[in-house]
């Protein structure tokens, strides 16, 4: 029953969004530049049938996921090392503190010069967009472990290595997952921008082409799909956090 109410209120939220959009497009704006949801959805179905939508979504998603996984695998150990050892933190601080203020979007130019417009530049950009958020959150997580947790383990006879594996690591898991969730948002922003500027395919390229030929419906299809994809992936992420790390963070 509670489940039903939960999903029900979600449905109402989404329905109201589309209703507002419809009202705004049909009665308020009444312009060819702002299509109502009906025609956008019809266009989306058509693009889905001829395969272009699926192909574009697949390539964008593939880029995001590859970069995101590589960035996380790189960021977690760096963050753990920075959080655990003060000298390493001091050595790497300038890198993270300097580079995290240069947005991945600004790095597109460099990426294209270095790696061309192929997959390598996309991979580089997504890793770049992922790694610092994950590093900072992981390091912050290690740094915020209660001192008594470590001391208790010492007094119970744990070695330094055991404390790292059995205390520091599990205590940091919630922070790592939070960092990864934030990084996922960054990856979305970055991949669209990168594909807008330099790509042969993907959702960003679809947006760019549609603008070029004034296919307003296509623009809105791309926007709609981006929003939906982000929403679904974030849900999956939250579900995974709950499933795999529920025992590490009782307050998801």
């Amino acid at each position, binding site marked *: 029953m509670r489940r039903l109410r939960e999903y029900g209120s979600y449905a109402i939220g989404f329905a109201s969004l589309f209703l507002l959009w419809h009202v705004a497009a049909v009665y308020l704006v009444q312009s060819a530049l702002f299509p109502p949801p009906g025609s956008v959805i019809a266009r989306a179905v058509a693009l889905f049938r001829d395969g272009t939508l699926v192909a574009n979504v697949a390539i964008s998603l593939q880029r995001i996921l590859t970069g995101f996984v590589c960035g996380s695998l790189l960021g977690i150990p760096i963050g753990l090392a920075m959080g655990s050892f003060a000298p390493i933190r001091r050595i790497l601080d300038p890198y993270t503190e300097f580079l995290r203020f240069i947005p991945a979007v600004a790095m597109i130019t460099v990426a294209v010069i270095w790696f061309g417009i192929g997959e390598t530049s996309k991979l580089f950009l997504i890793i770049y967009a992922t790694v610092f958020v994950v590093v900072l959150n992981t390091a912050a997580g290690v740094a915020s472990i*209660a001192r008594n947790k470590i*001391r*208790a383990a*010492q*007094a*119970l*006879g744990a070695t330094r290595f055991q404390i790292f594996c059995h205390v520091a690591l599990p205590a940091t898991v919630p922070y790592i997952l939070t960092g990864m969730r934030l990084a996922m948002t960054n990856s979305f922003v970055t991949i669209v921008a990168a594909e807008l500027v330099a790509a042969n395919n993907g959702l960003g390229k679809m947006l760019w082409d549609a603008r070029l030929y004034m296919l307003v419906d296509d623009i809105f299809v791309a926007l709609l799909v981006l929003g939906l994809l982000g929403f679904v992936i974030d849900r999956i992420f939250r579900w995974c956090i709950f499933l795999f790390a529920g*025992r*590490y*963070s009782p307050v998801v």
Partner: protein
Amino acid sequence: MLRGVEKTFSSRQGADYVAVRGFYLELARGEFFCLLGTSGCGKTTILNMIAGFEKPTAGVMELEGKPIAGPGRDRSVVFQGDDSLYDWLTALENVEFGLRMRGVPKTTRREQAHHYLDLVGLTGQEAKHPSELSGGMKQRIQIARVLANEPKMLLMDEPFAALDAQTRAVMQEELRKIWQATGTSVLFITHDIDEAISLATRLGVMYAGPASRLKEVVDVELEGARNRTDDRFLGYYRRVYGMIREEVEVARRRERPDGPR
């Protein structure tokens, strides 16, 4: 055994702060010693040094003739708050943590953890995580966790300070029973006179800080279960209250040198 122990903290302003100076204490095996003092007198500093978390600036600290070099499982610590528990582990897994680190096989350590959970009255709560348990239950997990490690000495830093009065009274009674059953030496830190007399076989009152040391040691000779309304209990209370009262006055005057006398 502590001989002439001193601890100086250096502050960021460059002024050193001598927390403890010339602290002497010898504990007998199996005794329950309560260390009493006003806040800021260095009680916790003494405990942290015995636990090995902090090193003394001067003096000698020994456990059964061997110098204390760092934290070790012969001296277990029960902390004041609940932040030392591992919230990703169940009550049972928390209790067997020390055994697991030592590589004790699973069935053996399960058995032992169950035994100590029963001893502290947590039968049936094994599968719960700390976040699902009350403050008193969390302190019971801490106690079971250190007991499972079978330490020579139990160090307790105001473990019941955050509990409500009723829970605290129950926990004190049970701690005394557990101590009688296991025969472990206990060093118990508190600022609560009533708690100290209820628990201790011997208690020590510290001077107000800085450069604090033991002011006086009192043998608490009360047999059997301790009764707070007993005349002899009250006699001890008056005596210790007098000692503490003086130190509270000293501490107050040091904080506010111009204040009313």
